[in-house]
């Protein structure tokens, strides 16, 4: 009987059974908060800047997730220690799957353009290897949607990232299903006024926070104020995280490290940190 029970698929394995492990943040506070123990791989995730001015921060968070996603050995190391790391280093390096950035060349109708062109050296300084990136520029929203679905259907990329302005419920369901079939994470950057409901598994609102400085006073690691606004089967939450581009790890901003966060809304991150 126990044998049979073991063979039965688990409650979540209907769609995700053959999929990869969810993408962990390497940070227990966030991972344990999310229902799957990380960002589900075969799902649509929305990333929204808190204000229009925070768009680079939101895109930075997206790139950080992609960087984490494309460095399996480090992610494994951060997630579950020695076993995985032996496993991932004993095998020869696999083909480097690309990551697609599908961005509109036409600008967003409601929130202006992307602030500039994506700078490869900037991706590089966030720990994402630009040689893995394929930049796809689309002329209108129909093309964007087509390219997103095409990229997901092919199942080839490591992840798909995109930027799109309007997205109705039905289209988002379609995208979510495509991501689920492919078992690939689809990260969508949305304009800051996004309010309509969508089928996304999570929606993150990203705000800016003063960056961490090293002991020489140089800007070392970016920090973002993350707000988990919507989360299917989960609770919303709020954190201030710091991202290390060398190890691809997120960490909670320590309470004593930066006096600027003890002012104002930084208190909520302390609460979160204390709770976890």
């Amino acid at each position, binding site marked *: 009987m126990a044998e049979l029970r073991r063979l039965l698929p688990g409650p979540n394995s209907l769609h995700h059974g053959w999929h990869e492990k969810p993408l962990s943040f390497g940070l227990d506070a966030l991972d344990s908060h999310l229902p799957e123990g990380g960002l589900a791989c075969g799902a649509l995730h929305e990333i929204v800047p808190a204000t229009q*001015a*925070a768009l*680079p*921060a939101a*895109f*930075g*968070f997206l*790139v*950080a997730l992609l960087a984490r996603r494309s460095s399996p050995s480090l992610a494994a190391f951060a997630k579950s220690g020695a076993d995985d790391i032996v496993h991932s280093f004993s095998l020869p390096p*696999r*083909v*480097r*799957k*690309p990551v697609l950035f599908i961005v509109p*060349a036409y600008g967003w109708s409601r929130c202006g353009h*992307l*602030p*500039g*062109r*994506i*700078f*490869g*050296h*900037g*991706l*590089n*300084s*966030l720990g994402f*290897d*630009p*040689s893995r*990136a*394929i*930049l*796809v*520029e*689309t*002329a209108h929203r129909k*093309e964007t949607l*087509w*390219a997103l679905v*095409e*990229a997901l259907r*092919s*199942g*080839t*990329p490591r992840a798909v990232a995109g930027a799109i302005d309007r997205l109705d419920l039905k289209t988002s369901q379609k995208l979510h299903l495509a991501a689920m079939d492919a078992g690939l994470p689809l990260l969508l950057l949305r304009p800051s006024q996004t309010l309509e409901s969508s089928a996304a598994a999570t929606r993150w609102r990203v*705000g*800016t*926070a*003063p*960056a961490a*400085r090293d002991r020489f*006073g*140089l*800007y070392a690691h*970016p*920090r*973002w104020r993350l707000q988990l606004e919507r989360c299917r089967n989960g609770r919303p939450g709020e954190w201030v995280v710091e991202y290390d*581009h060398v190890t691809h790890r997120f960490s909670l901003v320590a309470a004593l490290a930066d006096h600027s966060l003890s002012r104002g809304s930084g208190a909520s991150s302390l609460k979160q940190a204390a709770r976890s």
Partner: protein
Amino acid sequence: MNQAAENAGLAIGDSLADARAKAGMLQVGAEDSGAGDAALCRLALWATRYTPTASSWNEENGADGFFLDIEGAAHLFGGEESLMADLAGRLNRFELPARLAVADTPGMAWALSRFHAGSPFILPSGCEAAALARMPIAALRLSPETRTVLRRLGFKSVGALMDTPRAPLAARFAADLLKRLDQALGRVEEPLVPIVAPPVYHSVHYALEPIVTQQAIVARACRLMQNLTHVLVRDGVGARALKLSLYRVDGAVKTFGIGLTLPTRSVSHVARLIDLKLDALAAMQDTGFGFEAIGLAVTRAEPMSGRQTELHPSRAAEDDVEIECCAALIDSLQQRLGVHRVRKFKPVPSHSPERAETLPPIEDMAALAWPQPDRARPLFLLPHAEPTEVTALVPDGPPRRFSWRGVTYDIAGAQGPERIAAEWWLNHRQHCDLAPTRDYYLVEDGKGRRFWLYREGLYGRETAAARWFVHGLFA
């Protein structure tokens, strides 16, 4: 000249007054040589349905016709006679009275088309000398001066010229007389310059009835690709670039180029790319009365090793499949969105941010090596650095406050300067002044927004009043 003009007795070379006298109702207009050339070029393109090598006549050939190299293609139409009949019939339907001739050499065919009485005329192999002997001197494509001199010397036909010893002719005339003679007789090769690059492999399908739907075109193209696959496998190559030609019933030809990231022989992949290409160009909006023939050509082939199918797929084989899938995805995106829309980041060894990277379209699957990041670089680079008003404590110190796009930012912290000077070797070549040196600062405002500012010009040396610019945004 058309039939009506011939009936009226007009001749090429008449003066306008003579022509008016012969035909009173004559209307005179300026010659549009460009339109004539374009029409001839279109017709030559249409004629590639018979053979891939069509070559328009240049100025010295009279520029009013084209050569078709039908060697190896005639049997597909049931021989030279039926090819000629088919061609003549179609040209008649376009109401283009044409003079056609087949011969072993281009020079001979040219002479026959001009000076032989029967229009579709096929010269049997080996009869060049006899046929040419009866032709007038003009059949040799000579310059007017040479022709005049020959006429003065009493040469009326090519036969007379052929009987004359060669040495005096070579001494008396420029080289082109003997060259033309030898070309017509096949003693000297005459290369043809095709109007479109001849494909490596070529396959054409002639529909029984005009095709009007996209599905039908894709299905036919699929069959053509199957034909090509056998040849590609035999030669151990794959297609890197394909050309699809659609021949419309009314003579117009549409060609579509399809580039591939990796050499391929996959029929389904090519069919899908053609489908996407037709989608993207909305090619089916202008079908006219339909397409009567479809040609698929491999314009670039590259060696492609056959893959062994293994019972236990190895890691390397899996990786190959993965690379192929990736190439397939890039191909479809490029066909649907345009080649220049699917790009990769390529580093350029330069410190100047504008020049530090390029975004070329993806052409192959080679991975580029990016250097380790050593300096903070913004995630977004503004297309053009935007001027900004900056307040600084000391003229060459870090900024304290700046306003950009109508918002004023108080700077909480600044990191810098990082001095980037213009590349003198580039500017030197253009003989213009060096661009001013830039001092870059990474600044952060109170809310944590980070910008990349620079001050242009060194105080005292390059400028008296430095200007500030915003150049990038950090995550």
